[in-house]
């Protein structure tokens, strides 16, 4: 099965090119780990190659960009061309989340794993339909049960959340203290 053993060592440029091809065919962001596995190269080589590829994308005056999102690498269009892309695809901007859904999402993002009663406590209002919307949009997902009376379901954000909000991972979210400091001013 494993014919890889007899292959020639690859040059860094070749690795960069293969990585570009793989990131392109993938239908979701590709982690450096997976790239290392498929190419059977060590992690440092892959990371150096990805960095080189990203530099190339930055320096070419290109319509595309390579970015890190949801724990992996993805090629996407540059934001500045959104008017033309949208005109071409004949799409309108996505329907935005309602205020209630956004607030609920913020609570879930920062408090996860969190239960429905805990969300109610913070928002002061039933959040059932907002939670339903977020589940339907796959922005949140189940994160086990809380070991308390009734073992309520806990919710947390999903990979789709990272994708739709352009985050590498949750640690990229600004810290909640930043918003705490803003509260009560005015």
């Amino acid at each position, binding site marked *: 099965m494993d014919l890889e053993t007899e292959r020639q060592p690859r040059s860094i440029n070749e690795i960069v090119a293969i990585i570009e091809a793989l990131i*392109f*065919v993938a*239908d979701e962001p590709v982690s450096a780990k997976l790239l290392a596995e498929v190419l059977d190269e060590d992690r440092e080589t892959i990371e150096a190659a990805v960095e080189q590829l990203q530099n190339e994308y930055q320096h070419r005056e290109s319509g595309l960009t390579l970015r890190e999102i949801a724990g992996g690498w*993805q*090629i*996407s*269009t*540059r*934001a*500045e061309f*959104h008017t033309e*892309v949208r005109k071409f*695809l004949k*799409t309108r*901007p*996505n*329907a*935005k*989340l*309602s*205020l*209630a*859904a*956004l*607030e609920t*999402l*913020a*609570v879930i*993002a*920062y408090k996860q794993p969190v239960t429905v009663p805990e969300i109610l406590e*913070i*928002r*002061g*209002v*039933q959040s*059932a339909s907002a939670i339903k*919307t977020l*589940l*339907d*949009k*796959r922005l949140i*997902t*189940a994160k086990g049960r809380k070991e308390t009376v009734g073992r309520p379901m806990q919710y947390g954000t*999903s990979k789709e959340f990272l994708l*739709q*909000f*352009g*985050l590498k991972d949750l640690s990229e979210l*600004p810290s*909640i203290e930043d*918003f*705490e400091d*803003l*509260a*009560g001013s*005015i």
Partner: protein
Amino acid sequence: MEQIEQFSFDFQTEIPHIIRESRDEIRLQMGEFAGPLDLLLYLIKQEQANIFDIPIARITDEYLKYIRLIKSLDTSLAADFLVMAATLIEIKSKMLLPREISEAPDEEIEDPRRELVDRLLEYETYKNASQMLWTRSTVEQAIFTRGKIESDENNTEVNSNVFDLLKIFQKILAKHKEDVILKIEREEMSLAEMLKKLKAMFREREQLHLLELLREMSTRQEIILAFIAVLELVRMGNVTLLQQSIFGDVVLTKSK
């Protein structure tokens, strides 16, 4: 691109607010507040009050005025707004009570507004965070990923999570239920068959409780038939009806 949300808003232009038409008339502008805390926060800012020293009487009055405007709000949400109204009234009344002269004057007296202020601050924290999320998603909407390519052909497959399992299972069960009902309806019983069935039952025993009998029936149709059959048996003098107490069970007894 799927469009799910029915209403969208824009943080910069569509923040809900109240327009004061005259002294007693206020009008709600743009959508609904996301909850009672949202409304309260708005009113406090409107009054340019300090959140750490809320003019509770004035804010409560404003809040109650608004509550009257949202009578039409769906009931589950209205309840949460009313709970807050009760809380405000309670705080207001506590503030009106003369402060007891404390035994130890240095002792800090708990401000009745304290808990509310804490909740408002926590809520506002997340509200600010939600604005950040809104901004991020707006930026993200300007970025596009590649179109479909050949190797995507297995995209009929879905990436699933546990909620999909539950939803799908519920859908299957719902479909199943319909099938069962259809099957029973096809095997509909006639009045003659029901009479026969009842007579057979009375061959084996002297008495039958009506409720028990009706409970054995699996569809509305059968229950109605059984009831008509009982009346028919009474009419023909085959059984007598006896109710031992008002609202008590009715006992069918075979006529001698």
